[in-house]
């Protein structure tokens, strides 16, 4: 062993970003699912370009729709992530996705204690159709998962804004959107939030970026 470097973990500390998106039938209206697919692709590509010796963004992607919630991309460094395309169909099993998120965050083999606190990003346009209350309370109030930063977007009038207000870490982290266009805006907000953390001298203090103006969007 020739240097102190031989005893060090060579990878930067992970900064997990865990995304859970709604792919229920209602997301198929007014171009929302298409906007979501584009926004996810842009999001992944834009943060792939971010680089830091001190933090490495890790992404996991979950979705809920049809009859169940699924883990579509297991947690992995951003460099290994390929985008996912969703079809809208079925119900809104949000409680199921809360259980999956909880399972991931409590698992120290997937998110070691060396990691920075995870950010959870939730996007939905509807009301949960399964038993969501107990899984949500366990996610946000109990154990390790309670320490994650939680950001959410409510799309349209049908989204359960009261429930989402309870879900987010603080009210500023609930973004309200009216249209498909706002989904892309939301993911730009998430990009700014994550990259600010990554570049920050204190990555464990979540900063609230300004929502981007419409005219800065590149359609």
């Amino acid at each position: 062993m020739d240097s102190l470097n031989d005893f060090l973990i060579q990878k930067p500390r992970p900064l997990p970003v865990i995304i859970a998106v709604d792919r229920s039938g209602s997301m198929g209206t007014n171009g929302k699912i298409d906007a979501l697919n584009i926004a996810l692709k842009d999001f992944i590509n834009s943060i792939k370009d971010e680089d830091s010796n001190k933090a490495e963004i890790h992404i996991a992607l979950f979705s809920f729709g049809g009859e169940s919630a699924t883990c579509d991309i297991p947690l992995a460094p951003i460099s290994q992530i390929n985008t996912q395309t969703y079809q809208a169909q079925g119900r809104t099993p949000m409680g199921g996705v809360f259980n999956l998120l909880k399972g991931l965050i409590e698992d120290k083999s997937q998110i070691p204690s060396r990691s920075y606190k995870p950010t959870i990003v939730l996007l939905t346009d509807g009301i949960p159709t399964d038993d969501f209350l107990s899984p949500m309370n366990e996610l946000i109030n109990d154990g390790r998962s309670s320490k994650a930063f939680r950001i959410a977007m409510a799309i349209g009038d049908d989204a359960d804004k009261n429930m989402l207000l309870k879900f987010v870490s603080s009210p500023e982290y609930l973004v309200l959107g009216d249209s498909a266009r706002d989904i892309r805006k939301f993911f730009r907000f998430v990009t700014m939030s994550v990259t600010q953390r990554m570049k920050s001298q204190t990555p464990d203090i979540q900063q609230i970026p300004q929502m981007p103006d419409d005219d800065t969007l590149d359609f």
Partner: protein
Amino acid sequence: MEFKTTVIQASIQGDKEEGIPNQDYIEIFENDECLIAAVSDGLGSSKNSLEGAIIACKSVIDEIQKIKLSSDLFILDKGIKEKWAKEVESKSNITSDFRTTNSFIVVFKRDKKIIVGQLGDVLVSLRIDGLFRYVESTSKDFSNETECLGSNRDEKFKLTLFEFGHSFDFLIATDGIGDELLTEKIEALHDYFKNKFQNIEASKRNDALKKDIEEFVNEKNNDDKSLVFIWTNKI
């Protein structure tokens, strides 16, 4: 049996906003009775944490000199925490502004006993008579989270008493270093430090250690980084 020890130590400031000092603190104390190494990591989110870190190291040294080895170790935990709180409260009503971790090792020379104390996520590893022990840091959920003095949760020092026969070496490192170490290589790191630094002139050892940390660990995270390594010399 007489023995001599070598101490190397270094503390470097992390990449922080201007005006925020290095909030780690190391204090070594030695007399005929005992050798004490105490390391504190003041919490970055507490504005007077350097002061809290200094008070913690001094409280450890004061209280250890009062303790009888036949006493229950919880008396030491209580004594250090009360001493720290009293000193802090004489300066401010807001003890959370002084939050700090603290870990220490004390070697009682005549009794050939060692007490290891740990409150928070400062790494402690030791090898006594050739047997390596890694004292896992108090469990934490994520980076930069820790138990500490000043948390108002009455968190306790993890205290362990060991005996030694002929030799020991030990390492204390704040999380800026400890979180970056490969756990399975920590014993080999003890050998690295001994082999490398025993061949460096005594007056230059600490500077060489500081250079090592700056060169290899500083880019890993923004935390302050402090390390003490002590080993017994063959006589």
